[in-house]
């Protein structure tokens, strides 16, 4: 029996979307975002597209800080704190991989690279996977548009506790607090 995979709702965070035309402007925007505080996580989602995350309690300050940072550049900053939600998976690498593999062809390299971001279809969900640093286990955040979060939770819970087949690398999972 493998160690369990834990499933938790993502904690609230302040989130900003930054969009700009790709190309030279995007390079400048990216450089300025790199200069933001360490408390800000900037996930680059594509050419000229970022999702920034910061402490929830500093939401309005966060928005102001980023807007100021990008002054003079053609960039759109939207407060998307309420637009995203999701789940946190924590467990042994193989078990987390096997669980995610029920929704998409995950490159194992992703799980091994802390800070990596994968924007993909996970099962029927347009999801954003974000790998957090963890000493022993794999720690993966799965973000979706907020309206899908409950449905994703049902999808994930349905896959928790499923026993392994002949080549599954056993998953015996439970939801945190359950």
């Amino acid at each position: 029996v493998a160690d369990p995979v834990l499933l938790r709702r993502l904690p609230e965070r302040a989130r900003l979307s930054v969009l700009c035309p790709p190309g030279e402007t995007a390079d400048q925007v990216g450089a300025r975002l790199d200069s933001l505080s360490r408390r800000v996580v900037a996930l680059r989602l594509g050419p000229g597209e970022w999702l920034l995350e910061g402490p929830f309690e500093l939401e309005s300050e966060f928005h102001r800080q980023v807007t100021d940072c990008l002054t003079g550049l053609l960039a759109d900053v939207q407060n998307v704190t309420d637009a995203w939600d999701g789940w946190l998976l924590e467990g042994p690498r193989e078990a987390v991989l096997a669980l995610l593999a029920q929704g998409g062809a995950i490159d194992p390299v992703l799980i091994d690279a802390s800070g990596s971001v994968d924007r993909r279809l996970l099962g029927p969900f347009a999801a954003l996977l974000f790998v957090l640093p963890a000493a022993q286990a794999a720690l993966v955040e799965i973000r979706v548009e907020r309206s899908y979060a409950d449905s994703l939770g049902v999808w994930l819970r349905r896959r928790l506790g499923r026993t392994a087949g002949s080549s599954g690398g056993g998953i015996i999972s439970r939801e945190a607090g359950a």
Partner: protein
Amino acid sequence: MSGFRLPQGGRLIDRDRPLRFQFDGRSFAGFQGDTLASALIAQGVRTVARSFKFHRPRGIRAAGWEDPNAFVRLLAPVCEANVLATQLRLSDGLEAASQHRWPSLAFDVGALADRLRLLLPAGFYYKTFKWPARAWPFYEHLIRRAAGLGALPDRASQVEVERRHAQAAVLVVGAGLAGTAAALAVVRSGRSLIWADEGDQAGGRVLDQSDDAVLAADRLPPGLAREGQSVRQWLEQACLEIETAARTTRLACTTVLSLHEHGEAIALERAGLQSERLWLLRVDRVVLAAGAFELPMAFEDNDRPGIMLAGAVAHYLERYAVACGRRAVLAGAEGQLQPLARALLRAGVEVAAIIDPRAPVTDGRLSPASSPALDRVPVHRGWRISRAFGRDGIDSVRIEPTDRMATAGSPIGASGKTVRPGDRLDCDLLAVHGGWTPALQLARQAAGTCSADGSEDWVCVVGAARGHDQPESCMGDGWHRAIGLLGKMTRGPTSGASSGATARPERIAPAAAPPILALPGPIPEGLAAQRVFIDCASDVTALDIALAQREGYEAPELLKRYTTLGMGPDQGRGTGPLGIELLARHRGLAPGHLEPTRARPPFVPVAFGTLAGADPGPLIRPYRDTPLSAWHREAGAVMYESGANWRRPGYYPRVGESLDQALRRECRAVRQAVGLYDSTPLAKYEISGPQAEAFLERLLPSRVGALKPGRGRYALLLREDGRLLDDGVIFRLASDRFWLTGTAGNAEAVQAWLDYARQWLFRDLRQVIVAPVSAQWATIVVCGPKARALITKLGTDLDLDAAAFPFMAMRAGRVAGCDARVFRVSFTGELSYELNVRPRDALALWLQLLDGGRDLGIEPIGSEANHVLRVEKGFVSIGHEADGFANPDDLGLGWAVHIDKGDFVGRRSILRDRASALPRPELVGLEVDDGPALEEGAQIVDAAARLGHETGPDAARSQGFVTASVESAALERPIALALLERGRARIGEIVQVTVAPPDASERGHAGLSLRRATVVAPVFYDPEGVRLRG
């Protein structure tokens, strides 16, 4: 020997674990590791099924998916129809039954068809059931009852299905010697590998052989095998190396179902009877080492139980210690049958003779190199089986010279015994080997052909599928061709799948075409030809092939459709080529001249439940909730899926209230007091940047530049053909920032359209940013004459006076303590405020509004009431009136198109439509005098039309259809919107509308009637729009 089970041997069975199972109600014993087929053969059960068309008794013929008949109904532990006995692993308590017979397998009334088979040749249905035409429903009933094999289970599947995705550089299909060598090459290259195979252990056909030959290392690539290593030793070592490699995914008991472009493959893994896993694979390259199928032979009554493929006989003997008979005749190429003859003799089975249809050589004995044990086995070279005898099981065969002229004068037998044409040899087992046909179905699915070419790209065929039949040649082929394939991979080991542009499989050419012995000698003609079964799955006979050819169906694809050759559950895996070769012979063409028919996925039958995956029922689609969904459910709302996966409240019935009553109550609240509608799913975009205005001017048909900040207008989104893609509103938030809305169901399509416009149509406008903001705004619509009073009561810093905050204006401010963007737009025709707030604030605001509006008569309303209210106002809805064909003029929305403002998307098409004299469907209203509302979707015909007349003045030609129909609460009568040809010019005219019978779904078009309706203007309520501007 107990029954047909040998006292020892059997690589796959565990004699320490006996099992009990039932077949057709009889109890039998087997061993752990058996298949149902091996266990039934071991128990002496010969007939396991009845054939599809003639209900002839059929036994187990093969050992794999190529068996055409051994389909059974599984009753326990799970219920499933059409399960192939050769693939069904035995478990204790398993219950199975034969199918497609009545009342029993031994006595089947359907076998009467066999007596009448002269009347039932290919094409019988097409020729017979076309007259009289009115009798077709009766024929259809009969045909439907006769069609199909098994009965559907009466309960939901208990098989647990999981879906799994994986990616790798290379997929190797098959774990025979060639596949194993190819997989080894991949592993040693350091690339990631997915290795899939039918069996639970590698080895393929090697596992069917009792001999373990030493490999000739000098005939192998250097380093592939050690000196003196046997085949099995090499396999064991190779598998260990492959399976322990870090980047290998080994899929045992797995069938690759399909191969698609872009390196996509779908495979099915079976983990016992109750568990399946569907794999969706993404790979760069594919090595196909799927081997070859053994062909049967064509002769009279070649379908009798006890006639088996030689490879299957070896399979059951070696893997399950099951002898398939006690006295065997072997037919086929002598050299290929020698190992089987030796194994049968060792097992105590008498080998009556080997019949080799090829031209005679030497003295009719086995070659000098063969085992002395075979000395006593008569070999008849140049002879063939011409007929089998025995009804429920073979008891003898008749032999004839293959070429009567060459051998008639010198019949030769073994041990000095001669045979004569027409002699019968007693036997209870006939093992036939008609040659091999490569298993290229997957390659053909991936758009491959079977013509010769040496080129290869992303699919590479190796091993037996290319004609290799010796261990060293198979291994060498797999190794070399896999290395060749890897050498063409320019990207790194973890690269993604190939692009579609280069994803073309090689043209496949078997290295050396094996001899086709499946059609030895002349094929009988006339009545006898109807006993020569070419495709046992569909009961296609040699007569059918000849008939089809005579009637002009000379192409294999036509032959297939006319005769149903290869259309049975086995998809002609082992017999399709036989029919094609017979067709070639009838046409006087050389063997191999005709290409086989196209293979289509899936490679083997798959249950729908497996494809549906792990999320049955309502979970098969994801769903979306608004921040208020929990409240809606708690309030007793009937929730609907209303597009784009949103679950929204349809209506809020009170206890004992019907849909109509609830609707009337909700509609009345909006018309007389105030209603509350959760409109969160509305699609919303912010479009900003210095060129945002220019972008929108080109995109939308209305003037955007004229809008001042805080003002907006109705917006149409047109496709290039001038048809409506979507509609919504456009507001200017600031000088360089706009707010665009669209319908919820079309949000993704509109997003894609905006991206297309920004990135391609108007790529010169680079200073534009389109931000989808739907998810960060919850939208609550407060509508009704008391809406202003309600918001004022709750407290706001906005001046809600009509002059200060007019219709089609927006303001940002605070409402009931929440930051909000408030828009004065209306979809109900009443005074209306659309409050957009942060989703986290939505529930609190909703509750405050409900609470504050209690004394004003507030009601939450669902999408049903919203629909009624908008129909009363004649507002169009995407998907109803805007059906993908309608342009703005058709819908009476020409006022929203500023055609003279300059170019915009769809302008040219609108001008073309306006210049055309062709009549267009136009939006109108319909009223009926009495009775219920019209049916949505009902067709509109001329007042004089009569049903059943397709031409002439009475013809009932459709002139339009009803797009929406409701019982108006405000007008207290049914009303409808419709798209009617030249509708606006016909206002006041009487038309007829079709009425479907109550059981329309059962009766199709039969039973339609007509009902009269009056064409009216499409706005039924407040046509001047006084209320919504109030």
